[in-house]
């Protein structure tokens, strides 16, 4: 299946990526061949087969609701590219 340039741009935007023109061409053809390969799965009739999202049988894990130590705010902020006192700083989002 050939993926159009427009489709590549759309996916890139969903993924929050800018692609250079040559990246668009390269990814376009590579994605097409990878997706063609994935179409192999359609050889199998999987009509009533349950999907596996997780290999082990998992149940909800419950615990008592009590307070435990967590990472201190200043420590949690240590890796922030930009911060002011207690907060992460980001570009203005409200006009």
């Amino acid at each position, binding site marked *: 299946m050939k993926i159009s340039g427009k489709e590549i741009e759309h996916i890139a935007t969903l993924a929050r990526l800018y692609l250079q023109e040559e990246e668009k061409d390269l990814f376009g053809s590579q994605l097409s061949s990878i*997706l063609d390969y994935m179409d192999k799965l359609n050889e199998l009739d999987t009509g009533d*087969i349950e999907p596996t999202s997780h290999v082990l049988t*998992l149940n909800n894990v419950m615990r008592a609701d009590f307070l435990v130590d967590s990472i201190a705010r200043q420590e949690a902020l240590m890796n*922030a*590219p930009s911060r002011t006192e207690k907060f992460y700083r980001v570009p203005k989002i409200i006009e």
Partner: protein
Amino acid sequence: MTKIFTNQGGFLELYSLTISDIRELLKRKEISVIDVVNAVYRRIDAVEDRIKAFITITKEKSLEMAESAQKNINNDNAYLCGVPLAIKDNICTKGILTTCGSKILYNFIPPYESTVTSRLTENGYVLIGKTNLDEFAMGSSTENSGFHTTKNPWDLERIPGGSSGGSAAAVAADECIAALGSDTGGSIRQPAALSGVVGFKTTYGRVSRYGLIAFASSLDQIGPITKNVRDSAILLNVISGHDELDSTSAPLTVSDYTRVLGQDIKGMKIGVPGEYFIEGMDKEVEKAVRDALKKLESLGAIPVEISLPHTGYAVATYYVLATSEASSNLARYDGVRYGLRIEGKDLMEMYMNTRSQGFGAEVKRRIMIGTYALSSGYYEAYYRKAQQVRTLIKKDFEDAFKEVDVILTPTSPTATFKIGEKTAEPLQMYISDIFTISVNLAGVPAISIPCGFTSNNLPIGLQLIGSHFDEESILKVAYAYEQSTEWHKRKPIL
């Protein structure tokens, strides 16, 4: 004192020893922790320029940890007291740079410790450094690392395998005593095979993923890369078991894995799946693996031909599921809370600039595939379909394990390949994981151990797969094989 005389009259450098050797010598007070650590650093000084196994070397931290280990040396419960280990750089170590092989985390210093390294610390290990990997563990060669490519100690023009190529090369080159890696589609076993060491991926849920930087959460597992099977069992003893910080970790008790080592394998059934001995696989690899089967037969094991009929669909299934999970997991790298930020005129532009400049080509490619597979209109055709095929692949293994105790296959269809040989065509690189991927999809445990060398003196790996939570059968068979062969004793000449 830095050299140990053997009863054959030769001597061994301390850095070439195993965990169990080192523990024995430390307990007998024949050496001190600092001797071991110094020996490892001498080795690193001598070979690391050529191997490039590490992203960060933590010498100051090593000396600090060595000092505290020495004080604790008589504590019999500290399995790793004074043992220098290397950790893959996608496992968070508090206060120590953890990059995941990506420029987007070039400066990330975790404010918390992963569960596995917490357990190593409780057991007195000495951290040597953080090892190189394909960016976000996406790759089979370390060529996708955001920093550099690691070289295979057996041939410096070849790749060490990946994504845990730094850990495998560091162990093979004796730059540490053992290491931890992580395995999503073969990333422990394939580099172990290609670098001539032992790599173990446990049952999904056996080892906590807390503090492992997520790639594909339903497939990722942390595991040991070691010089022999016993060391693998020792490290599993330390890192396995339930962790309340990981809701996918299995609430099961763990036995002492070293107990099964040396047990008789007579009468054990070894499954040989026809689908894993395919047209076009390397003849030398096939011969080495078939010889290994004969060896096990001579030890009393019984070969049984089996079929894993959906094997041919594993790579396609994996690349739908792993890329989908990755596209979701990697959404968090947006320049707000940690790592790289490239400013833009507004928030959206900042996100896009940061991600476009921070991620390498392979990571972008996988995010794109995953985003496509999960996007509106395609979810049923790709993601749900792949989850259904995953059920079939898992069932193949469940059926097989009704008849056999372990399954024997090659770890990789070829020995190590040349740097640059497979980078142009991503699909070719993906297909090199063909023998390891099904194991992650089914969630079963598997080991890779050395089983021979090609005529070019390149290592070949044997994969032994077990049923869910039956790590013991794998260790038992792997140990019996290892003890009756000499492959694991060969070292690359550096």
